[in-house]
């Protein structure tokens, strides 16, 4: 059994969750809080989705490809077919997964730095195509006026997800919780052990009956799908996407920084990284250093790697044992 009942991690998680559920009632209409926290949850979800594949030991520097394709897939489907964003974001996720499938075919045998470089380069292919296929994707002008999420009716209450910042805050909180749950099940399951075995010693894992290729491929597809889904959600929340925005290095690198900072091998690690770093960056550093605030992320990754390579989450982690 894994000891979780009274661990500080569980208590901390519950306290944080209650805070995020009830804080809007205290803060009323504090637009800055909603905007910052909505994006915090969004980057937390992105980091969790990214980490699923990173747990296999292969670090991707190209998840912006899944994100951008998800955003464009969802936005264009909504633009041309006028489907509800609730349906098109799923399509966005699938577009991401299809590109993930291409990755498994093309770089399935690459590991370590060669894999990372290949993924970094692979972002350019969809970006250049979308940038130049003006008749279909509107090229560098981007897609504007993307339909927002339609209102959701709960009983007699209508929640305007398209306009209300508070509603968007809760939407992203829910999305993040769902991805967190997937991340948790993934780590704690037999599948998670197979992934851990691949990360620690791939040859031995294969000789113990772990299907290396299948495990890696399915994990990548899941990670790509969820990242594509995040891309779709982003497109409909922002209402505007353009290639440099959704295929940016920032989208690929930020999940890595947040996850490394929070703790790669912890269930809540990537989310913890987002909850600490993103508000800190937006509220504090953005006002102090409006231009160079992203230096913060560079510094943090260096400090993290030097002083706490397992992330700050490992401070609160109890030793997990099997009985």
């Amino acid at each position: 059994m894994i000891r979780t009942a009274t661990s500080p991690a569980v208590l901390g998680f519950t306290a944080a969750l209650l805070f995020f559920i009830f804080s809007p009632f205290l803060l009323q209409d504090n637009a800055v809080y909603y905007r910052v926290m909505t994006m915090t949850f969004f980057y937390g979800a992105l980091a969790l989705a990214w980490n699923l594949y990173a747990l296999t030991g292969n670090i991707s520097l190209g998840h912006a490809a899944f994100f951008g394709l998800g955003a464009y897939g969802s936005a264009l489907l909504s633009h041309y077919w006028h489907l509800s964003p609730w349906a098109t974001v799923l399509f966005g996720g699938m577009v991401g997964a299809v590109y993930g499938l291409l990755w498994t075919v093309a770089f399935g045998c690459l590991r370590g730095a060669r894999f990372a470089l290949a993924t970094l380069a692979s972002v350019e292919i969809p970006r250049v195509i979308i940038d130049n296929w003006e008749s279909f994707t509107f090229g560098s002008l981007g897609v504007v006026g993307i339909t927002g999420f339609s209102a959701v009716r709960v009983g007699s209450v209508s929640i305007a997800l398209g306009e209300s910042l508070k509603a968007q805050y809760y939407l992203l909180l829910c999305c993040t919780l769902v991805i967190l749950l997937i991340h948790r099940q993934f780590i704690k399951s037999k599948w998670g052990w197979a992934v851990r075995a691949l990360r620690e010693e791939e040859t031995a894992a294969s000789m113990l009956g772990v299907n290396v290729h299948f495990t890696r491929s399915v994990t990548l597809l899941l990670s790509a799908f969820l990242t594509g889904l995040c891309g779709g959600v982003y497109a409909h929340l922002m209402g505007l996407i353009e290639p440099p925005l959704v295929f940016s290095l920032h989208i690929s690198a930020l999940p890595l920084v947040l996850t490394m900072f929070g703790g790669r091998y912890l269930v809540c690690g990537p989310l913890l990284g987002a909850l600490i770093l993103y508000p800190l960056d937006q509220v504090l550093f953005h006002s102090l250093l409006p231009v160079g605030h992203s230096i913060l992320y560079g510094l943090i990754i260096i400090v993290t790697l030097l002083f706490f390579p397992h992330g700050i989450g490992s401070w609160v982690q109890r030793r997990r044992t099997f009985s």
Partner: protein
Amino acid sequence: MGAKTPNILLKLAGISVEFQERVALRHIDLNVEQQEIVAVIGPNGAGKTTLFNVICGQVKPSSGTIHFDGRDITRWSSHRICHQGIARTFQIARPFPQMSTRQNILMGLWFGAGKPYGSPAAQARAEELLELVDLSPKVDLPAKELTLSEQRRLEIARALATNPRFLLLDEVAAGLSPHAIKEMAELIKTLRQQGLTLLLTDHFLTLTSKVSDRLVALDQGEIIMEGKPDQVLQSADVISAYLGERNQERS
């Protein structure tokens, strides 16, 4: 097929392996019978580990076929070969370093033997295997903190966890004390009594001469001699290829 002969468990026919320009194995024919202990001997670079890698699907042969229990497994991937009942240890131990000793063994039970995840049966079997290789006091230690000899024993237990019929032990005696070698020989004999077939490699002959039924001498990727241990060790070819090297090392 026609490869199945009642007592032959593993049958290699005409196996060759080439790495770019270099020939690592040349036309190897080898049969291993049920419950036999066969040792592959030879100097460094003779192709012993490559032979193991070919049997386990980690290196694909450029020609030839491998039959296991009558089934052609020549181009199968390692996990399928494991599920057929072949397990191995590595020349340089490859434990999962961050996992505990017990977790290392559970990996073999869950993925190799298909024991249900989290089942008490798997836990109980893990305890038995830890007992067998004398690692019970170290169950919760991360594998990276074990000594070399303990890591080798852990690898054997982990391989046994996959419930194999055929076990390949690569340089299992290397770096062990004379006492530990004696214990290893006992363990190997016990495993055979339990129905296992074993293929070993042993560079220094310390273990193989004690336990094997048959020796196969490899040199430069070819089998130069095969037979009873005494017979092989007295062959002039083997002495010049192999023992000659050992005498040089001694002097």
